[in-house]
């Protein structure tokens, strides 16, 4: 049985929808579909945008016809992918919590009825799946935030949140890859540049990978900052079975 639906989005895009609920299974299905399509190097595909439950494919209709592309996609979508093939990659992102780095940590703690240290412990105790990137270059939509520390957004968004800020907005947590306005409650900051236009690749992570936050102190923050500035800091990546 088909677990997907192919829809038309204008004259140069196809949208494949895999369901209507956010789940790790659907996300893995999308990640492996993207890999299969990339591996086939289909001429005429211009770009792809994987999202929570869908995959948008931009194509050039002068190079490949809709019918031909659809046929090739159907074939790929019917291939079996073995779960064992997907290796779980976890990026360890060091974060200095609280104080000037995370001015809203006290709000989050107060809202949760926990101590600041308990909030940090909860935040650093699981691997967050990167469902998709979007909104800003390198901005990750992460799944898996512990319900105990869900916190509503600020009533008045900040005009400028510095790059590297780690925060919570409702049920989500994430990192601001660049200076940006925003309404999330800021709990800390990472010295790692998750987006650096001068670096290749400019973005560290991709959809389907995981992020684990690791608590560091101010001295460590300074040390990593200096290394990151010189482009000498390597993020620790753990690899293993899911």
């Amino acid at each position: 049985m088909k677990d997907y639906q192919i829809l038309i989005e204008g004259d140069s895009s196809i949208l494949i929808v895999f369901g209507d609920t956010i789940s790790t299974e659907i996300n893995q299905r999308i990640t492996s579909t993207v890999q299969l399509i990339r591996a086939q190097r289909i001429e005429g595909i211009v770009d792809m945008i994987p999202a929570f439950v869908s995959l948008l494919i931009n194509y050039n209709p002068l190079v490949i016809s809709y019918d031909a592309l659809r046929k090739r996609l159907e074939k790929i979508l019917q291939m079996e992918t073995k779960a064992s093939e997907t290796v779980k990659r976890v990026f360890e992102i060091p974060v200095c919590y609280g104080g000037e780095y995370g001015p809203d940590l006290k709000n989050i703690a107060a809202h949760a009825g926990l101590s600041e240290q308990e909030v940090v412990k909860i935040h650093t105790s699981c691997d967050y799946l990167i469902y998709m990137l979007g909104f800003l270059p390198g901005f990750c939509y992460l799944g898996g935030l512990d319900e105990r520390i869900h916190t509503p957004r600020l009533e008045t968004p900040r005009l400028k949140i510095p790059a590297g800020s780690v925060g919570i907005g409702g049920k989500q947590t994430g990192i601001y890859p660049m200076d940006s306005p925003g309404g999330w409650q800021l709990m800390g900051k990472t010295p790692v540049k998750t987006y650096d236009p001068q670096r290749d690749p400019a973005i560290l992570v991709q959809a389907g990978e995981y992020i684990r936050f690791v608590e560091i102190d101010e001295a460590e923050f300074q040390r990593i900052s200096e290394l990151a500035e010189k482009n000498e800091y390597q993020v620790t990546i753990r690899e293993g079975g899911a």
Partner: protein
Amino acid sequence: MGFRVLKAGMLTTVQDLGRNGYQSQGFSVGGALDVRSFNIANMLVDNPENEAVLEITLIGPELEFTADTIIAITGGDFSPRLNGEPIAMYSAVYVRKGDILKFGSARTGTRCYMAFSGYLQIPMVMGSRCTSLKSKIGGFKGRKLEAGDYIGERIKRRYLPFFLSRKLPPPDYNNDNGVLRVVMGPQDGLISKQGIETFLHSEYTVTGEFDRMGCRLDGPIIAPKKTSDIISDGIALGAIQVPSAGKPIILLADRQTTGGYAKIANLISVDIPRLVQKKTGQKIRFEAVTMQEAQRLYLQEVKELERMRKEIHTPCKEVLDCRQVAKRLERLYADAETQRFF
């Protein structure tokens, strides 16, 4: 070699056909809003298809050339003047070192494009020279042009084949009927039957909230069945979102890569250049066509551009007329400076 910016205008940026392949990381595609005018500008100065040009918005800049070069200006009419004299749009124009090119504000359209035969000295960033204002990358230092900026050219090219043939008729933006064609979907199923009727049979007004990211429209409210919120998905160029307030938004070159509002329809590729030349207050309507029809129109557009390319590579009357040629040669020889024409 190149030009200096004396006055920047409202929003003057370097653009090409955009930065593809990085949307999955959150990078917008960007690139010229009006791809048709962009293509014609490059064609007129014999440039490769994806060469970077200036995109000029609503109020034009003032530029001083620091070397001789050949330019072409297409798109909206911003009354360009070279040393105070009006110059032809949709035509290759030879400009000299020290010449001052001054644009006014948009008389017709909203965006104009200026191509240079010497290829702008702009570094490639992730496969493109286009400016991404949000990511602050590409183009000139990742930002819009400001007074005092200088952009050079990568090559010297002061001779173009069939120079006198390099002109085309400008479009008549005032005669546009305002009917923009769309392919319905992918989330028109979330919109009520009444909402679809409203969308296809009402007049919408282009508002002032119209930038490189998108164009907000004003007009009758398009009602969803229940909600128009969706689980965020990728957004194609020309997608028409209907947020809960019911006023449609058409997404353009600098659109965010993903969004959470239902997309009722998608503007067809060939009608995007028409939309982006609309001024605040102008009216538009939507007409549904099939995806196959949209692709046929796209192919037709490519053929039309090919026809233009042939036209400007054909000797024109001035070239074939002996007296005209003699006159031109006489003029060239009379001016010792004109050695550089050859």
